[in-house]
């Protein structure tokens, strides 16, 4: 009889332990960086498991990144991409890994592929263009993931904007990234201008002026120097749009 009671008590404790662990896990879950399980699967046998199991995620991610550099020098696209994505998955809050993975995928890998197919003289221009675009799109996917994992890092948004502009030649998409960068914390000074310039060049001239002006009035004009370069750009836009004086930005005292 005593054994039965003991058995029942053990079972009760077991269920209690499992149930309570679910509650405590819900509480601590946001403190533990999310890990992209699909990204690390191909490298699980290469010491990465240690990183997932407990501490050392940063250290293992760094080691993985060093190894990816070796493959980058060898221009080994699949190996390099796998290891770089693994580093991102192991330490998803690190801006550095996402940014550089995006750069390598977007700018280098298409060239490796062109060389692998015989070089720039042999591969037709349209195929080359297709390769540049497809790798840029993949790089943008990586950067988008990075933006989500780092809580909207401005540097990643800028990198994405650059890539969309230079490789995809999609100025509207690029403007969207620069706009998000402008709205994020630690936005660089040039982000609003780049957004406005891309919108302008994409044909949305009024929209570009309206947005740029709003940002200047609400944010940039309140900076220490009043952002005179941005005001100069806005004046050029007003000229180009032939805006009547009354509709232009009122002249601040310090403007030349």
């Amino acid at each position, binding site marked *: 009889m005593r054994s039965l009671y003991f058995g029942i008590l053990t079972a009760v404790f077991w269920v209690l332990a*499992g149930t*309570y662990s679910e509650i405590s*896990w819900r509480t601590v879950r946001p403190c533990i960086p999310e890990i992209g399980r699909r990204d690390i699967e191909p490298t699980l046998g290469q010491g990465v498991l240690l990183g997932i199991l407990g501490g050392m995620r940063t250290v293992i991610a760094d080691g993985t990144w060093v190894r990816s550099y070796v493959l980058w020098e060898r221009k080994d696209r699949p190996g390099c991409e796998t290891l770089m994505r693994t580093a991102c998955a192991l330490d998803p809050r*690190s801006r550095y890994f996402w940014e550089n993975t995006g750069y390598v995928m977007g700018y280098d890998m298409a060239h490796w592929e062109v060389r692998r197919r015989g070089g720039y003289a042999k591969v037709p221009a349209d195929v080359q263009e297709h390769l540049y675009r497809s790798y840029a799109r993949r790089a943008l996917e990586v950067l988008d993931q990075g933006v989500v994992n780092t809580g909207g890092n401005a540097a990643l948004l800028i990198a994405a904007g650059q890539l969309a502009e230079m490789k995809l030649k999609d100025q509207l998409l690029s403007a969207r990234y620069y706009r998000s960068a402008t709205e994020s914390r630690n936005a660089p000074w040039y982000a609003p201008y780049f957004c406005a310039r891309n919108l302008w060049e994409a044909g949305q001239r009024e929209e570009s002026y309206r947005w740029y002006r709003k940002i200047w009035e609400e944010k940039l004009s309140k900076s220490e120097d009043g952002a005179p370069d941005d005001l100069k750009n806005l004046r050029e836009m007003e000229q180009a749009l032939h805006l009547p004086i009354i509709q232009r930005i009122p002249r601040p005292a310090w403007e030349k």
Partner: protein
Amino acid sequence: MKAFMQRTTWITWVTFLEAIRQRFFAFLIVLGGAMVLSSVAFRFMDFGHGELKFVADFGFGGMFLFGSVLGVVMTAQLFFSEIDNRTALTLLAKPVSRAEFLLGKFFGTWLVLAIFVFVLSGLLGAVLWSRSIELNELAEKMGRLAPEFSPGGLVAFALLQWLRLGVVIAIVLTIASGARTFLYAVVVGALAVVAGQLQWIAQDVLLKPEGSVWYRGVLWVTSRLLPNLEQFNIGDALVLDPTSVPANAVVQVAISGLIYMVAFLMLGTALFRRREI
């Protein structure tokens, strides 16, 4: 009850003395200490993290890895040395219950691991503190944001690691109570720790409303059978970004760990009672 406590304390003390004299313990604590102290020298391998994060991660990794190895191997070794040398037979012939024997083994080993965890945490704290002073001065000169280091967070993390190792010891003792050989207990114990460390995957899937009923049922059972050891790894947040940790997180994880320990020790006692020595 008093006699129960006395006998358990006595076995605890004997186990503690036996464990602390082991060369294996000395070897791992020196190795762990060397790893923590040398972390500053490996800074050149760091990419894009805060320096303190890299150093802290090195220390946490050492504590996790060597602590787990120590917890699994030493517990099984101390348990089977009593069985193989027939000292358990002599001991249990006296008015000492099997529960007292198991509890004594548990607390003795857990005390040794307390020394392991708190010595390494002390070393890590010293390294982090000295680097944070230097980095704060540098940040002040360059007008940048100084990195944060919370000594209180490190103490909380050390306590959580100690509790995690307590759960590991309880698991290994439960396995050893039913096992015939030392090797079996070590191998299955190590696998159980790995499974426990990955149990969060099942819990994460359960938190999302997807998958069939059967799949979710299997996950539910798995997440009940195995302890979630990953929940103890909140060192980064506790030490370097303490404001991001919910107020009750440490207490909840500690309670969860304690319940697991009791559950495993009860199962271990039940198994050990049925065992022929």
